[in-house]
C-alpha cells in the first residue's frame, strides 16, 4: 500500500511556561484516497496532529513524510510551497479574507503558487460552479451564510488540486443542515479519490463519514478503527467510540 502520510514516533512538546506534551510518539500512516477522521477530547492533541501534517508547526521529534516530502527536514520556504501545492486546509471558522470577494478568496492560493490570473480565475469559477456558488462570486464573505462560507473555503482548499485535504472541525460553526451539506461535499470529494483528514470531536460526524477513525487521548493514539466501506457505523460501534472519547 502506498502511504500518503507517514508519521513515525512523532512527539510535540510545548515549552512556553508549563511543559506540555501535546503528542507523544505517535505513529500513523494514511493511504491515498482514505477518509480518516481524527477524534479526541479537547487537549487530546488532534489539532496539533493536524497542524504538523499541514506543515504549520514542527515536530519536536520523530518524522513526518507527506506525499514524499519530509516535513521534519523542510525549511520555511519549502513548507510554504508544500502547504500551497500539496494540502488544502478547511478551518472551523472558515478564515476567509474579509476584504476579498468570494472569487478572489478562492483564487489566492493559485495566485500565490504563480498560476496565471486568468487560469486561476477559470479554475476557481469551475470549483464555485461545482459547489453551486456561481451567483455569489462577487459577494464578500460578510454577505453570505456560514454554509456558503465553508463551501468557499473548500473551493479554496481544492484550487491547487492538493493531494490531501485537511478539515479542522469544518461543521463546528454551522447549523446542522449546512453541516450536512459540507460533509456531503467532503464525502463526494473522497469518492472521487481525494484523500481527506478530518479532525472533529463529534462522534457521529467521525463515524458517519470517516472510513477510518483514529482516536487520540493525552497525545497518544488510543484507537485506530477501520470501518466498512459504504455503511454507517453500527450503534454499538458508535457507543464504543463515544465511550473511548469520553
Amino acid at each position, binding site marked *: 500500500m502506498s502511504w500518503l502520510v507517514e508519521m513515525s514516533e512523532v512527539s510535540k512538546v510545548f515549552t512556553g511556561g508549563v511543559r506540555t506534551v501535546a503528542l507523544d510518539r505517535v505513529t500513523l500512516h494514511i493511504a491515498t484516497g482514505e477518509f480518516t477522521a481524527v477524534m479526541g477530547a479537547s487537549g487530546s492533541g488532534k489539532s496539533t496532529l493536524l497542524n504538523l501534517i499541514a506543515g504549520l508547526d514542527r515536530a519536536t521529534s520523530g518524522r513526518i513524510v507527506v506525499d514524499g516530502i519530509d516535513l521534519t527536514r523542510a525549511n520555511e520556504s519549502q513548507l510554504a510551497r508544500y502547504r500551497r501545492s500539496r494540502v488544502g486546509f478547511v478551518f472551523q471558522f472558515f478564515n476567509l479574507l474579509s476584504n476579498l470577494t468570494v472569487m478572489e478568496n478562492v483564487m489566492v492560493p493559485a495566485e*500565490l503558487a504563480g498560476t496565471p490570473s486568468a487560469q486561476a480565475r477559470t479554475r476557481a469559477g469551475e470549483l464555485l460552479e461545482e459547489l453551486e456558488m456561481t451567483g455569489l462570486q462577487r459577494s464578500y464573505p460578510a454577505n453570505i451564510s456560514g454554509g456558503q462560507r465553508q463551501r468557499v473555503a473548500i473551493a479554496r482548499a481544492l484550487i491547487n488540486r492538493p493531494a490531501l485535504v485537511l478539515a479542522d472541525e469544518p461543521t463546528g460553526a454551522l447549523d446542522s443542515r449546512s453541516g450536512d451539506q459540507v460533509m456531503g461535499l467532503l464525502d463526494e470529494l473522497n469518492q472521487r479519490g481525494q484523500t481527506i483528514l478530518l479532525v472533529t470531536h463529534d462522534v457521529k460526524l467521525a463515524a458517519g463519514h470517516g472510513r477510518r477513525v483514529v482516536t487520540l487521548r493525552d497525545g497518544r493514539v488510543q484507537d485506530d478503527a477501520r470501518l466498512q466501506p459504504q455503511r454507517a457505523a453500527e450503534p454499538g460501534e458508535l457507543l464504543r467510540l463515544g465511550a473511548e472519547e469520553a
Partner: protein
Amino acid sequence: MRPVLTQIRAAVLRRRTQTATVVLVSLLATTVSTMALTLLVRSTQPFDDAFARVNGPHLMFHLDAARVTPEQLQATSTLPGVTAAGSPHEIALVPLQRGEEKAVFEIVGRATPGGAVDRITLRDGRWPERPGEIVLSYRGDLPALNHVTVGTHVRAVSRTGLIPFTVVGTALDVGDSMYENSIGVARAWVQPGQVAPLTDGDQVRLGYEMAYRFQRAATTDELAADRHVVEAALPPNSQLWRVTDWLSMRAGSVWLVTLLSSVILAFSVFALAAVAVVVASVVAGAVLSSYREIGIIKALGFTPREIVAIFIGQMVLPALAGAVVGIPAGALASAPILKDVASETGLPNQGFIDPVADVTIFLGTVVLVVMAALIPAIRAARTDSVRAISMGSAPAASRRSRLAGVLSWLGAPRPLSLGAGDAFARPARAILTLIALAIGIATLVFAFAFQKTLGELAGNRASYGYAQDVDVYRYPAFGDADLSALLAAQPETSSVVATRFLHVDVPGAADPAPLVGMRGDAPGLGYSARTGRWFANPGEAVVAALTARDAHLRLGDRITVTLEGKSLTLQVVGVLDDFSLNGRGFRVGWETLSAVQPAVSPNDYLVRLRAGSDAKAFAKRITASRPESLNVTATDVNQINFYTDLINGMVGGLTIVLVLVASAGVFNATLLSTRERSHDIATLKAVGMTARQIALMVGGTALVLAVTASVVGVPLGMLLTGAIFSAMFEFVGVIVDPSGTFGPGTLLLVFGAAVAVALAGSALPARWAATASVAEVLRSE
C-alpha cells in the same frame, strides 16, 4: 488613582515596542527643538546685555566730512523721535599694522568714552589723553591685533608713511561698521583732531559718525522711518558709507544662527508635528488592540475620565523619558555654535543651559502629547463595554480597497495588492502616518536641494571673494605700476586681476551700492555671471543679484548711477551671486571706471598662482618686499569649508532626525496593521504564502504609503525649500531659485529615498509577521 497608575505602568511595560517608539520620537524632537530654542534665545543674549549696558545706538550714520558740517549734524539731535544722540565724531577707515599683520580699523576721534548714547566700555587701561595714544576694540579674526595689551605699539598706514600709536586701553564694542567689502570693521579711538592727519582725501577719507537712539526702533520698519527723518535733515548724498542699524548689528553678531534659524525653526516645528501624529497613531492603535480590556476595566468600575488618564499616561511617560534625554542633548548640541558666536563677537560666552527654554520644551512636550492622545483616549472611554467584552476585538476594517482591486486588475502579484489594500484600511491611522511620512519626505527634498545648492555656491569661490590664491592689498605709499611689475616678475604668478572698490548712489536706493572696477582677466580667475555674460566692453556691468532685484534690473537694461557726483551709465549684461558684496553692487571693467574717475588706481590685487605653487611662501615673500605698504594674504578656504561643513552637517543631522521620526511612523502603522491582521496573515500562510510573500505584502502597505506621501511631501518640500532659501540665502546676498535644483534625477532620488524610508520602517513588522507561528495565531482564535 492607584489603579490608574497600575494600569499605566502595566501598559507601558507590556507595549514595549510602542513605548520605545514614543521614547525615540520624543527624544529626537526635543533634541532638535531644544537646540533651536537655546540658539535663538541664548545667541542674542550677549549682544542684548552689552547693548543695553552701553545705551547702544539704534542708528549710526557715517557721513562725508566734505559734504556735511558738525553743526548740521549737531542740529539733528533734536529731531522728532530722537531720544538721545551722540556728538559728531571724526572718523576714517585706516589700516593699522602690528608686525606683519594689518587690518583696517574705523579710527574715531572722541574725547571721552561716556555720553548719552554709544558708551564705550574699557576692558582695561584708560582712555587716550594725548596724541599718539589709541584704544583698540576686540576683533575676533585677527590674531595679532586682537591680542594687543596696554603698552603695545601699532602703526597707522597713511600716504605720508607710518604713524606710531601706543595702545593705552582695550574696549568692548557692540557694533562693527560695514566697510568696503562689507566685512565688519572694528573701531579704535584717539583724541579728537588726530584723525584728519591720517586721511588722504582719496583712499582714506575724513568723515563723521553720528549715533542716535529713537523712541520707536524695535522693527526694521520703525528704523527705516527714523532713518528717513535724519536723512531729510541732511544734505543729499552726504553718506560716506552705509548706515548701521542695531537690528543688523545684532543679526551680524550671530550671523551663523541667523543664517540657520529659519532651517532650525522649520525643522523643529516639523519634528514636533511629527511627534504629535506618531503619538496619536500609537494611542489609536493601543485603543484598538485593548478593545476587550477596555470593556473589562469599564465593567470593573473605571470611570471614562480614568480611562482617558490611562491612555494619556501611557504616552506621556515615555514622551517625558525621551524629553529627559533629548533636552540636555539639544542644549549640548547648541554649545559649540554659541561658543563660536561668542568668540567672533568678543562678547562674553553664555552658558548653553537656558532654564526658560528647557522648561518650555519640557512642558510643551507634555501639552503636545496630551493633545495628540486626547481624541483616541476619549474614544476609548466611550467604548461600549458589553460589546467590547462580547466581541473581544475591535470591529475589523473590512472595506474593500479599490486600490487593491485596481492593482489586482493590472496583474500585480496578489501579496502586493493585498498589502496595498491594507494601507488605508484604517483611514485615520493612514492619514497620521502619511503626515509623518510627508514631513520626512519634505525635509529630504529640502536637504537634497540645500546640499546641492550649498555645494554649487561653495564651489563658486569667486562669489565669496576667494577666487584668488593670494590677495595683495596695496597702501598708497607703494604705486600701482610698481606693485604690478613686482607681481608680474614672480615666477609663480599666473594672472593678476587688480580691483578698486568704490560706492555709487543708485536711484531709488537708500544705501550707496558698491562698485568694483576690475582690471585683468576676471573670468580667467573664476568670476562668471549666473545669467547673461561677463562684461566685455566699456559701459557694461555685471550686477549683483539683490541690487538687480531691488532696482528691477534685467539683462540689457541701462541704469545711471552717481560716482563722486559724476553720472555713470551702465548697461546690465549679467547677474552674479556675490556673497562678498552681500549680494549688492556692480562689477565693471577698468575702462568703464576710469572713464569717470581717470585718476583712480586699483588697490586690491587678486593673484592666481601656477599649479603647485606655495601660496603662503609667495605671500611672505611679497610682504617682505614692502612690509609697510602691502597687506598680503594667502587664501585660506578652511574657514569657508568649516562653515559649509557645519551648516551641511546640521541640515543633514536634522534631516536624519525627521526621517527617523517618519520611519518610526511607518513602523508603528505597519506594526499595528500586521497585528490587527495577524489572523488573515496566518490564514494566508496556511494556504501557502511564503515568508517572502508576507514581507512583500507588508512592504506593499509601506510602498503605497510612501507613494501617497510623496505626492504631498515633494511639493511641500519644494515650497519649504523656496521659503527657507529666500530667508537664508538672501541674508548672505544670494538669490537662489530652488526650482532649478529639482530635476527629474533629484525627484527620482527623493522618491527612492522615501520608498527606502518606508520600507525600512516596515522591515521589522514584516519580519515579525513573516516569522509568526501560524499554529499559535490560529490556536489563539
